[in-house]
């Protein structure tokens, strides 16, 4: 691969490494020269610059994708960190095991899942991915491989989870899988009319379902502002799946065939999925893939934003005054007319994140894509950041390309503590921007 191919998922910012190292075996990793500014690069699926290292060195980890051990009795698996979640699922699902936490794409590496301490639809019941990690083997530039866990090198463990790849080279990750009866999901989709209805529905659903998420329309003003579809689910039982095969085929409503994005298609998209002809509540048994990874099924959807790329922006707001603040932010977005292709609203639970720099904390989180239109886009996001900052919220580094240094330090007061464990020879474009 040429150096210019090492970008992040949203193709912004367009900055390139000076050099890319390409270890093929885990045994090569110990021989790598780590005496310059280096950063591991997996599948480049983060949005922004946490996976970039402009004019310095990236280490492509994607050949380090072996399984090292798996215990079918306990569901503990240990892999090289360059393996993707897709590769793990292909191996574990037929054996009746599933990822404890998964983000909205399975094309990320295990190392990336740890370094960004990713979250999923079950945050309110399971916490972040890092909460299920039992051991990390971390190579530092002092040429020592540290075994890190809750018992050994526990500070380094807490710094590495959510540590944005800055604490060293994550060689292997051991974590706990969860047992499933079938590869299917039982899903209830419920329409809601506005933001207030979301909050009510969410409160009820969190108690009933391990997985919850909603898609929200960000282009409608007035009483219907924040209308959307709430999808709550759980892993289906064998009995449910058997029964459903006698029923007619029911796929998730996902009518995307947009070759380009503009206000028209966004409105059409939102209208389509919101207006999909199902009753207020519909229940379905679907394979896990369309439920967890709807966008993975549309190859190259991110290219629809064109050559300037796009920005993703994800924040969390604590519950205190959350309805009011969320209304304020929605008004900003709706009034800007810069409506988004995909808007995801979800609650984070009480579970304390295991990493020093982990993003999730209790509250409501909103993730939105914005087509990159220069200053206009950046100014809107700055206005949203201000509201987030004033209300003790936070922003996700894994999806950031532009937050201010001041805001970062406000969102992550433990950053100074984190720096004690950062590897001096690891760096990233993100790090240099916010340090």
């Amino acid at each position, binding site marked *: *691969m040429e150096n210019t191919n090492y970008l992040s998922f949203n193709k912004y910012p367009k900055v390139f490494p000076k050099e890319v190292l390409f270890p093929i075996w885990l045994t090569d990793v110990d021989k790598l020269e780590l005496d310059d500014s280096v950063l591991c690069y997996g599948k480049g699926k983060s949005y922004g610059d946490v996976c970039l290292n402009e004019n310095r060195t990236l280490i492509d980890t994607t050949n380090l994708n072996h399984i090292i051990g798996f215990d079918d009795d306990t569901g503990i698996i240990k892999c090289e960190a360059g393996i993707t979640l897709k*590769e793990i699922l292909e191996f574990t699902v037929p054996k009746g095991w599933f990822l404890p936490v998964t983000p909205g794409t399975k094309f990320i590496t295990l190392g990336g899942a740890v370094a960004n301490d990713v979250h999923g639809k079950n945050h309110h019941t399971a916490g972040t991915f890092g909460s299920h990690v039992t051991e990390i083997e971390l190579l530092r530039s002092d040429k020592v491989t540290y075994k890190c866990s809750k018992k050994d090198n526990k500070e380094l463990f807490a710094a590495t989870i959510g540590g944005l790849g800055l604490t060293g080279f994550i060689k292997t990750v051991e974590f706990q899988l969860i047992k499933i009866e079938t590869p299917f999901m039982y899903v209830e989709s419920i329409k809601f009319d506005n933001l207030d209805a979301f909050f009510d529905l969410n409160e009820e659903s969190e108690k009933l379902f391990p997985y919850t998420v909603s898609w929200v329309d960000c282009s409608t003003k007035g009483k219907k502002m924040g209308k959307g579809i709430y999808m709550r689910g759980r892993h289906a039982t064998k009995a449910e799946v058997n029964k459903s095969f006698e029923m007619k085929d029911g796929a998730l409503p996902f009518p995307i065939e947009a070759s380009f994005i503009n206000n028209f298609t966004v409105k059409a998209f939102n209208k389509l999925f919101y207006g999909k002809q199902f009753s207020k509540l519909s229940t379905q048994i679907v394979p896990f893939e369309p439920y967890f990874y709807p966008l993975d099924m549309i190859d190259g959807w991110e290219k629809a934003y064109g050559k300037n790329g796009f920005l993703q922006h994800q924040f969390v707001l604590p519950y205190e005054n959350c309805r009011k603040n969320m209304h304020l932010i929605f008004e900003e977005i709706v009034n800007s007319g810069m409506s988004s292709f995909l808007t995801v609203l979800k609650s984070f639970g009480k579970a304390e994140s295991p990493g020093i720099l982990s993003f999730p904390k209790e509250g409501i989180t909103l993730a939105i894509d914005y087509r990159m239109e220069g200053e206009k886009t950046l100014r809107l996001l700055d206005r949203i950041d201000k509201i987030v900052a004033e209300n003790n919220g936070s922003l996700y580094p894994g999806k950031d390309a532009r937050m201010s240094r001041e805001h970062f330090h406000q969102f992550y007061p433990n950053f100074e503590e984190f720096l004690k464990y950062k590897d001096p020879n690891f760096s990233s474009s993100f790090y240099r921007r916010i340090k």
Partner: protein
Amino acid sequence: MIKNIYVFGATSKIAEETIKNFAKDGANFYLVGRDTDKLEIVKKDLIARGAGKTEVEACDALDWNKHPMTINNADKAIGQLDLIFIAHGTLPDNEGIRNNQMKVIEEFNINCTSVISLCTVASEYFEQKGKGTIAVISSVAGERGRQSNFIYGAAKGGVSKYLEGLRNRLFEKGIKVITIKPGMVDTPMTKDLKKGLLFANPASVGKQIYKGINIGRDVMFVPGYWKIIMGIIKSIPESIFKKLKL
């Protein structure tokens, strides 16, 4: 049913992606390659995926005196072999070495002579047993000599031709010979090449090879569209072909 598998070049990406599928079926493996540390990584991965008894041995492709012993050792370690899978190879920088006599000979020996050596030993082994499958990774590069890749291409062409004859010879003895001709695959071997649309993903290539070996196909292009591409390339008259920049 393919149960006991000997693999030469077990650390090659295509080999690994192929045998992962056999591991799921619970096959036993004897893995040969240059570096035991790397072979151990592959071994652990296969065992996690469901492989039975799995042993490793270090042997360099050019160390042909050792070839018979590795097959004997495999038989002793995991039992009578059903499949001998030969998958090692290197992709030389054609322009860089084409005037370097020693380098050219070495590349040819790695990609052709050593393969023929192993096939000779494998045929003898299976003829004694009365059954078995020899599967070899050749390449579409062996279909026609091109200025950009003719050293590797000549070696692979030699392998393909040898296997044609061997298949013919062993047919009546009930021994299968499978020639696998991958096109461009996105592996460490091709990391310095510019990646275009024709590059295939190693996992899907491995799966296709696994299926082809199980069915017992004679010659397989992977992915299949390479059969058409190479058909076209082969059909160009030499008087025109020699002027092309391919």
